């Protein structure tokens, strides 16, 4: 599979700019709701039309504003998994699948049977969609997409309508579907966990602007921009100014920090993940006397808002295990927090 996308579309409050190439991989678009990520999928599927640009799937031009090519959704062979699954309510599961299967009646019957079996729907074949649970409906929607012989799988927030346990079950099941696509799919999500677990590469979209794609693990480890940092779940970000090659001033935190790498000129922000802070009992580099502003107990950890003693800077969120927090309470004397230089993310605008 090879999908090349380069499109522009004016949306209500911003311009959507999406440029990327996805190959045999799960490619994720990570963004807040309303950032244009679903619109990107809709443009690929042909449900929406971009203002300009080009979309090529496996060498087939689906859309090209320059050549006036704009294939109908029917001609594109792109499978789209809708958030609400969009099964036809007037048809049973079997009829839903048969309705979209192509070929001779014998071919259709074979596709219906094969996909009912593949997704464990044989028992539910004659039920109507509304008689099925969310998870069963999603399996039926997958069965229907596979029966239609789509070349590409688009997943639009596939698990957002579900909660907790069921969500996890379906995430595990998605693996089966991806196998049929040789592991290739486009995933759109606002859930960083989902993106981290499911995708090979990912790109962040914010306000319609798509940032260059990175390997997913790399994106989470070392996000390059403010938007990527926030979307990958970093809670601590401060405006920052370069002091010299090895130091930045985090202006909102009121801290001077040494960095592990050379500070790029374009650095406007620094970030640090809440669980990378360390507790110290003596001062040192990147180590400051600690003032606790607020303590919040979470399910498996404590969230402690801290700042430099005597400063009026914005508190930093620090996440530490319940045991660590309790043992820190036993300590005598002044405590210090330490931000390891290698945990500091230097961010562009």
């Amino acid at each position, binding site marked *: 599979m090879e999908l090349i996308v380069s499109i522009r579309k004016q949306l209500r409050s911003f311009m959507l700019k999406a440029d990327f190439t996805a190959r045999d991989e799960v490619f994720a678009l990570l963004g807040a709701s309303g950032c244009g990520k679903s619109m990107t999928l809709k443009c690929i599927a042909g*449900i929406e039309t971009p203002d300009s640009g080009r979309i090529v799937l496996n060498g087939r031009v689906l859309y090209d504003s320059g050549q006036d090519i704009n294939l109908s959704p029917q001609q594109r062979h792109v499978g*789209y998994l809708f958030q609400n699954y*969009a099964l*036809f309510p007037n048809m049973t599961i079997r009829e839903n699948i048969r*309705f*979209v299967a192509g070929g001779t009646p014998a071919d259709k019957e074979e596709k219906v049977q094969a996909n009912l079996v593949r997704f464990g729907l044989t028992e539910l074949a004659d039920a109507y969609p509304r008689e099925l649970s969310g998870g069963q409906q999603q399996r039926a929607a997958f069965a229907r997409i596979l029966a239609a012989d*789509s070349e590409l799988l688009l997943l639009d927030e596939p698990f957002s309508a579900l909660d907790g346990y069921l969500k996890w079950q379906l995430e595990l099941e998605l693996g089966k579907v991806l196998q049929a696509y040789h592991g290739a799919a486009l995933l759109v999500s606002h859930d960083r966990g989902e993106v981290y677990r499911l995708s090979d590469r990912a790109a962040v979209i914010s306000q319609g602007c798509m940032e260059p794609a990175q390997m997913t693990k790399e994106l989470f480890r070392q996000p390059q921009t403010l938007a990527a940092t926030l979307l990958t779940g970093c809670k601590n970000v401060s405006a920052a100014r370069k002091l010299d090659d090895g130091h930045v001033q985090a202006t909102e935190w009121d801290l001077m920090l040494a960095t592990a790498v050379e500070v790029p000129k374009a650095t406007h922000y620094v970030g640090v993940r809440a669980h990378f802070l360390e507790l110290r009992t003596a001062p040192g580099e990147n180590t400051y006397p600690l003032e606790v502003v607020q303590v919040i107990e979470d399910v498996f950890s404590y969230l402690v808002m801290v700042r430099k003693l005597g400063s009026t800077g914005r508190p930093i969120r620090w996440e530490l295990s319940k045991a660590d927090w309790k043992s820190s309470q036993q300590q005598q004397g002044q405590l210090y927090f330490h931000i390891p230089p290698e945990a500091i993310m230097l961010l562009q605008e």
Partner: protein
Amino acid sequence: MELSPLIITLETAGAATVVTFFAGIGLALLVVRMNRFKGLADAIITLPMVLPPTVVGFFLLLFLGKRSSVGRFLLQWDISLVFTWQAAVIAAVAVSLPLMYRTARGAFEQLDPNIIHAARTLGVSEWRIFWHVLVPNARSGILAGLVLSFTRALGEFGATIMFAGNIPGKTQTMSTAIYAAVQANDYDLAFDWALVIVVFSLVFVLLMNWWIARSNKGAAIWN
């Protein structure tokens, strides 16, 4: 009791409903898909529903009467619409079309757009989507529109009497027969026809409700 008003009413209302049914669904689909001028198109189609029927009848006379360009064009083949059975059908269509159009449009707009998008991305042709997805899933609305426009056509009076007249045995329907009977002080006859209309309308609306309740069992989006 001369039965011709009953037969003429059923024939004109029946013929008008056939036209209204297809035209109303067609217009509903057309307007639903419009981007610009949607409000204007909707207003024009809805207008006959809110105007006094006499105004509708007057405009029909004006645009399709013997002195209109359409009327003169038809006269070349010795066809005249005014005061004919066909005129009664046209009058009934004009006033019942908005009902069919509006209920069908409402039903189409209530459909989840994603089921149509899904059908398209899965390669289903527009024609098959229309017959197998749109119409079945909007069928309560379409049925309601069908019955409403039929009962409206059944009771049509104002536009009919202006455009088709009140010729016994030719264009006299039940509602114009009631008017004529009252004019002639024959209250018994007027009462009989009034009762027939009430019974017919009641039966059709009851049938509609039963039909919709039954068809909703298998597949409704909203419950």
